[in-house]
């Protein structure tokens, strides 16, 4: 066995024993009032409806899905920013739902979030120094000013900003640089888990690549557990170890990255991959007719049975009646589809 394989094996073994996050049957429901005055009705919107997964230290889980699938709500529920209606979030074995506010606040030192719109997530009246230092002041109010300054400058260097810009305000930076500030703020406390909610979707392509590469490097360097939420499958591919696909509040599939892009298990994953535009004219022009038709059903009134059955090309009678459970396949990946064993959804090799 050569050194690299040996190393890989060691890392894998270490990672396996280092489960930081366990989410079990998590559900978040919102009450929505529709109509006016006397005709008003209260509906229950099941934004997240029974999602389970696990995350190890140093591992990246990508979460993809179209708007309204519940991925951002899930992110907030993981961090305890929303109380779930059902299910548990176990952080290092501890149920976050059972903690009082102050204890939960203390736990957040280890769990941080990076938001989508970099400029909106930064206070325009604070300097970069104050923005990045704020978590430090919150958790260590008696920390020495010199120490804070040193840490802030170190963070800025780490995320690729010039430490000499420490007294500037957010509006003096471009959106890509603002996202770097957001990342520095999230990492300043040395967290174990960082949840990134669409961190690159507001950025231009060339800048997007910079941020994805930065997150990937930092994750390796700091052995972070990363939850990376995006609607763009190709971005997720470049950063994740495993990918979870969500649709209407449910996990459709959780698979290892290498497997999911070659042979997805769920028809919805397959449709997402096929719909992603390929920046190569020869491939892009091979028009395929197996694209999804119609729109996503309203999350207020999701279909009975499998939520995807109204748009699924492989639908059978059972799908309309019975909700498929998320179950483990032979190769260790997870899927919620009655027909997963019978379907071969291998993505066709592009002809050259």
């Amino acid at each position, binding site marked *: 066995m050569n050194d690299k394989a040996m190393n890989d094996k060691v890392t894998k073994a270490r990672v396996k024993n280092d489960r930081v996050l366990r989410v079990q049957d998590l559900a978040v429901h919102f009450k929505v009032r529709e109509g006016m005055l006397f005709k008003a009705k209260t509906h229950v919107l099941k934004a997240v409806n029974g999602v389970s997964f696990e995350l190890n230290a140093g591992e990246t889980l990508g979460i993809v899905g179209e708007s309204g699938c519940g991925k951002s709500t899930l992110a907030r529920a993981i961090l305890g920013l929303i109380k779930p209606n059902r299910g548990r979030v176990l952080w290092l074995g501890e149920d976050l739902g059972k903690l009082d506010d102050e204890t939960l606040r203390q736990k957040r030192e280890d769990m941080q979030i990076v938001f989508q719109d970099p400029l909106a997530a930064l206070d325009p009246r604070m300097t970069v120094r104050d923005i990045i230092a704020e978590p430090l002041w919150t958790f260590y109010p008696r920390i020495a000013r010199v120490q804070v300054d040193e840490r802030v400058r170190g963070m800025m260097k780490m995320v690729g900003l010039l430490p000499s810009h420490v007294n500037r305000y957010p509006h003096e930076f*471009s959106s890509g640089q603002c996202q770097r500030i957001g990342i520095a703020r999230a990492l300043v406390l040395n967290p174990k888990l960082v949840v990134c909610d669409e961190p690159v979707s507001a950025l231009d392509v060339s800048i997007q690549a910079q941020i994805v590469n930065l997150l990937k490097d930092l994750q390796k360097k700091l052995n972070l557990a990363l939850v990376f939420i995006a609607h763009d499958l*190709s971005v997720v591919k470049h950063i994740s170890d495993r990918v979870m696909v969500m649709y209407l509040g449910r996990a459709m599939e959780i698979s290892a990255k290498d497997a999911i892009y070659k042979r997805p298990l769920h028809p919805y994953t397959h449709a997402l991959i096929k719909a992603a535009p390929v*920046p*190569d*004219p020869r491939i892009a022009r091979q*028009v395929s007719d197996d*694209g999804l038709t119609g729109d996503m059903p309203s999350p207020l009134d999701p279909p009975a049975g499998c939520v995807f059955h109204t748009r699924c090309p492989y639908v059978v009678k059972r799908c309309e009646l019975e909700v498929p459970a998320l179950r483990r396949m032979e190769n260790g990946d997870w899927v919620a589809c009655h027909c997963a064993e019978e379907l071969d959804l291998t993505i066709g090799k592009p002809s050259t």
Partner: protein
Amino acid sequence: MALLQIKKLYVDFKTNEGDVHAVTDLNFSIEAGDALAIVGESGSGKTQSMMAVMNLLAENGKARGKALFKGEDLMQMNMADLNKHRGKEIAMIFQDPMTSLNPYLRIEKQMIEVVMHHQGLTKTEARAHAIEMLRAVRIPDPERRIRQYPHEYSGGMRQRVMVAMGLLCQPDLLIADEPTTALDVTVQAQISQLMSELRAQSNTAIILITHDLGVVAGMCDRVLVMYAGQAVECGSVEQIFYQPKHPYTRGLLKSVPRLDQPGDAGIEAIPGNPPNLLSLPEGCRFRERCTKAHEACSEAPPMQLDEQNHAWRCFLDGHSQ
């Protein structure tokens, strides 16, 4: 004669901090029935150049240059003459379908008003035509749907309504500004396919403004790449995707994460940020981010053109990798 020919187009905005040079010396043309993509990052001037052509610039914006549509200069026209072309021969679709539809009016009202104005149809005729158009863009149950308000439509359906409205008068030219950017991928695929089909049926030329190279590859014949207000490269899709000559175009193609490539090929980012349009650097505007920059780049590079009608703004011959 080209359907639309842009000559020496400049767009400037007056702001408190000084003049923003949004578009500098833009030249291109599009033939009838063609699909041209204008590609670039935010602030590259791709939208403002088309807004200038349609005379839709914000109040502090000033445009000069020529925009010859079938030989007539749109930039010299008064509002009344321009309105005879806009909406009828040239239609525009905007990025965000919710803000471009009037939330207080039924879809019906918004659609038939265009046809009645430009084609002089009666209300009944116009309505029938609008329903037919909605059916063409695959809105289910159009007779009922046309009576609804925009908020009753989903995002994808609203954008389909925008496409339908743009094509109501069978324009010769459709300018689509990021028509699929706000949509989810499965819906995005539906809209791009729809636009390609409609183009094939009615021979409408399309100018597609986008930052998404994937959409360009599937839909367009020619590509114009813009950077910091200038055209930096222009050629056929094959030339741009397979033999890009400008270092920026090459960088852009490498920074797109791709699904169809194996393993951890990784993505190469272009270092740095686009220049500030208030104080543009002397010489080549891409110089500070360019790995191939050399002394000559402190002078503004000329547009080069080869025999295959492939143009690029760089001192390099475009062959060295």
